[in-house]
């Protein structure tokens, strides 16, 4: 009895579904190439990760190559560069975070205090210009600024009686150069979002505070900063999730074998092992480890933020 009631319902659903498909045929025609794109260029590479567990040989293809289990993971972890790569990646990213993250916030807060509207606008427009300059050019500019013979930084050092420093060849300076040039390129761009959220704070709060005799810094500390703190937290979580995702395209342009000690990071190693030396399986294995750690980091960051501030990504 039950079955005979269910069946017509199911048939009806199928019919409805077909009717829907027919109604949406143009929509589906439009959708198809886009889904094909995602399948080929996003999901096939995910499937390709299995070569991390195989000894990939192009003659046999992905499926035909023999399984080797965790061989390449072991090879990487036991290899001579493992500790150095992990340390460099974390340190570069960590320093980038503690210097690069607060500066746009401070810049936005200070810029907000500028009274002259035209000057404020001019500063803002100029501040994000470097964001649109390619990293190749940024590194080119950096090389010119730090050149031992003609760079302004070394000319200044010499004027004050110091010895010129060959910044690009000195492993002690790599992180500073990387982070400083990153700040130069992105502080203004990073500030846009804070400036926007500052401008959405209710002006009455300021008026009330001033009425109560609060000064500049008190307003900044008790109104502006709390007003933008949800934005800060969200961006911080996102940033923590990318802790291992260092801008390696810039590192590739800046480093040289002489400074691998501080400059070589996991993703540049993947590039050298995987692309340049064509050790595809090793490169994939290291890449997979990198993304697993990155994923764990973003989950942890999100958990902490849920506890501390009740702001969460999901």
């Amino acid at each position, binding site marked *: 009895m039950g079955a005979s009631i269910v069946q017509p319902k199911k048939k009806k659903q199928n019919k409805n579904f077909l009717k829907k498909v027919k109604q*949406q045929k143009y929509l589906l025609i439009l959708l198809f190439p*886009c889904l094909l794109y995602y399948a080929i260029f996003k999901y096939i*590479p995910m499937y390709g990760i299995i070569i991390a567990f195989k000894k990939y040989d192009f003659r046999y293809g992905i499926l035909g190559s023999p399984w080797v289990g965790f061989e390449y993971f072991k090879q990487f972890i036991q290899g001579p560069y493992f500790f150095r790569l992990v340390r460099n990646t974390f340190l570069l990213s960590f320093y980038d975070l503690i210097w690069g993250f607060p500066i746009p916030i401070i810049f936005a807060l200070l810029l907000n205090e500028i009274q002259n509207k035209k000057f404020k606008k001019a500063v803002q427009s*100029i501040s994000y210009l470097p964001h649109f300059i390619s990293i*190749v050019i940024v590194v080119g*500019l950096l090389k010119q600024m730090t050149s031992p*013979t003609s760079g302004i930084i070394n000319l200044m050092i010499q004027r004050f009686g110091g010895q010129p420093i060959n910044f690009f060849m000195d492993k002690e300076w790599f992180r500073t150069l990387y982070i400083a040039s990153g700040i130069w390129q992105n502080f203004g761009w990073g500030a*846009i979002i804070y400036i926007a959220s500052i401008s959405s704070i209710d002006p009455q709060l300021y008026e009330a505070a001033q009425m109560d005799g609060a000064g500049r810094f008190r307003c900044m500390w008790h109104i502006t900063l709390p007003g933008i703190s949800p934005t800060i937290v969200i961006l911080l979580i996102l940033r923590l999730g990318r802790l291992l995702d260092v801008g390696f395209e810039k590192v590739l342009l800046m480093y040289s074998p002489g400074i691998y000690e501080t400059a070589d990071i996991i993703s540049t190693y993947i590039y050298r092992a995987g*692309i340049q030396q064509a050790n595809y399986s090793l490169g994939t294995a290291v890449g997979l480890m990198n993304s697993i750690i990155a994923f764990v980091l973003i989950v942890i960051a999100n958990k902490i933020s849920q506890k501390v501030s009740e702001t969460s990504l999901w």
Partner: protein
Amino acid sequence: MTKTYKKFNAFDIINTLLMTIIICITLYPLLYVVAISFSSSEFVQANMVKIIPKGFNFGAYAEVMGNEFFWTAYKNTILYTVVGTSINLVFTCTLAFCLSRKELIFRDAISILVVLTMFFSGGLIPNFLLIKWLGMYNTIWAIVIPGAISTYNMIIVRTYMQGLPEEIFESVRIDGGNDLQIYLKIVLPLSKPVIATIGLFYAVGHWNSYFAPMIYFKDRALYPLQIILREMIVEQTFQDMAGDLAEAFGQSPPTSEMLISSSIVIALIPILCVYPFIQKYFVKGVMIGSLKG
């Protein structure tokens, strides 16, 4: 924001000064390369050029522009930017439109599969092997197709399209129009502002990209500008650039620093020219993106 303080105090002076210094630091490297590129090599070698060109001349530009590789690369960059951005916009807008339609079957499942790719990816090597396997290696397609849709940009466009009033679509339906007509005749024209914004994001991305061309191109004839710049800056090689310009100009030839500077200036010109007009769109793009929440 109506926030007025009566006094212009010490804080304002320091703050204004600080902002002025920040502007100077931001602009100095750019002004410096411009100055170097227009100066004559005697002054450059004596480290006498700071912000104003000394011994004004076009020697370095003549040298760079006379270089065949440089022009091929420039043309390539324009080609990749135009073709790449067009592909980006067609795919991104189409998917955004489909996902903005509430009646689409499996809409939620498709959305999840699409958004997942923002967090998980195959990584460098599997992508590289895929391009080789598809036969795209050493062709323009290797750099314009794989990044056809940036999921982040697609979400920005979709959010915008979802905000369009439903009633307009109904009127087209009543007149017997289908989804394709709704898309082409109504949604796309109404979405012009957001399309312009993400189009600019994509275009700047193509103009500035060096990594994909570096790993996917073998032929020098295919190299875009950024690769040539990279060779000059990182590897310090100058393809056929050490000409005997001295005889031609009756003065010492441009130094490598000058050649790099003038190349940088030529590569930056398009961005600097359009920047004043488009920067407000970029800011708008960041705003729309941040509101998606």
